[in-house]
């Protein structure tokens, strides 16, 4: 039976995916701007954040309206509340992409400190997490969502590695401190984007299984049959 709410839920999903695609593009462009030292592109990313904000507000309004007027239950309820939270996660990712671009513009005032090795790897891995988190949402795939959560460790490790490397630069030559700190920030921003992708993964697990796995030790995030040993 086709219900009135089905069309609205399907529209909501489409809007969220459009927002997701836009945010993926924002992150991708921010990283490109960093590698290419492209201040113009960085400026564009900063400007386009308002588009993401607009999506966030619009999706929030849609969800509130659905909750008030349709009183969704069970799977529908979990879908609407999850959509509302995913939109917040995406909006924050876009803010972080904006922050990356702000640092990129500042970094461009001085020569490049070092060839970027770990940052692009972190970014590539993070973007894959974001993509897979959204895919897990579309396909209602809790297994893929769990993989996203597990992948976060890799980004965390690279962040620590990057930090140690940049600290050694600063100890050796105080003239590098400003740039090294800015790069540390960028590393942190990318790491936070991966955290938000993880959050989306956890939300998808809730949406699919009705089980809240946030703030639990990693084994709880895993399904009963252990994935990794």
């Amino acid at each position, binding site marked *: *039976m086709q*219900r009135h*709410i089905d069309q609205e839920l399907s529209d909501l999903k489409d809007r969220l995916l459009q927002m997701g695609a836009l945010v993926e593009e924002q992150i991708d462009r921010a990283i490109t701007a960093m590698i290419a030292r492209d201040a113009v592109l960085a400026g564009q990313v900063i400007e386009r954040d308002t588009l993401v904000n607009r999506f966030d507000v619009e999706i929030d309004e849609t969800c509130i309206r659905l909750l008030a007027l349709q*009183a*969704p*239950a*069970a*799977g*529908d*309820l*979990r879908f609407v509340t999850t959509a509302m939270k995913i939109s917040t996660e995406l909006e924050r990712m876009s803010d972080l992409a904006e922050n990356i671009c702000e640092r990129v513009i500042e970094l461009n005032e001085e020569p490049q400190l070092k060839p970027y090795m770990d940052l692009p790897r972190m970014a590539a891995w993070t973007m894959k997490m974001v993509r897979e988190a959204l895919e897990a949402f579309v396909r209602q795939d809790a297994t893929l969502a769990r993989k996203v959560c597990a992948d976060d460790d890799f980004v965390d490790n690279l962040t620590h590695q990057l930090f140690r490397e940049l600290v050694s630069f600063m100890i050796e030559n105080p003239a590098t401190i400003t740039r090294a700190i800015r790069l540390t920030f960028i590393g942190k921003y990318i790491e936070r984007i991966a955290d938000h992708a993880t959050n989306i993964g956890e939300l998808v697990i809730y949406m699919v*299984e*009705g089980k809240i796995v946030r703030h639990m030790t990693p084994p709880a995030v895993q399904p009963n049959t252990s994935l990794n040993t």
Partner: protein
Amino acid sequence: MKALDVSQTVLKAESQGLNFFYGQAQALHSLSLPVYDRCVTALIGPSGCGKTTYLRCFNRMHDLYPGNRYEGAVILYPDRVNIVGPEVDPIEVRMRIGMVFQKPNPFPKSIYENVAYGMRIRGVSSKADLDIVIERALREAALWGEVKDRLQASAMNLSGGQQQRLCIARALATGPELLLFDEPTSALDPTATSRIEELVTELKQKVAIVIVTHNMQQAARVSDHTAFMYEGRLVEFDRTEKMFTNPSVKLTEDYVTGRFG
């Protein structure tokens, strides 16, 4: 059926493998369902699924028609009397279990006599005793303030919502242990409905309540446990919160999300 944490609850009644037949037609199939004390249990399901039939077993309403037949048991605790046992007197059952119907059905008598009715049948005739019980019942039904100055007026002149609260007061007067509500608000406006819902929430401090409702939001608002029935069978029983956020059975999910019914 998924296990339920019942550590904080006490059983008030329980059907055990209950079958019910209207003549040859079987309306209930092996229904086993607990009713916890000081809790509201909601029965939901599409029209004709057996909710009302099930509810009526609790006070032997089906006895009025020949050919109706019960199998299995409906146990009332703590004394473990089988409500549907042929040796049990339906009048005794109805003293302990009150019922409120879809349409308010006050007797064409005064407000006072409506509430006094059950007590008079029991043989209470002292005006002083009746006065006490009637005031208590009307207060518990949240009607006292509105009618205390016109207890001798006809009950038929009350509004629909007031009449329904009067019926609740009438059911409360005999001090029942279990209250049955059969779609108690389907004939009422939203304001009267919310008063009845608040009343149900208050009454459960003292008694066990079973409510049949077509309004799923009402079940979600007022009940602690929800049973979903389909074609005379119990599909799922769980905490209401679980039933409306993450039911275990696909059929329940389809019903509470409005995919059928």
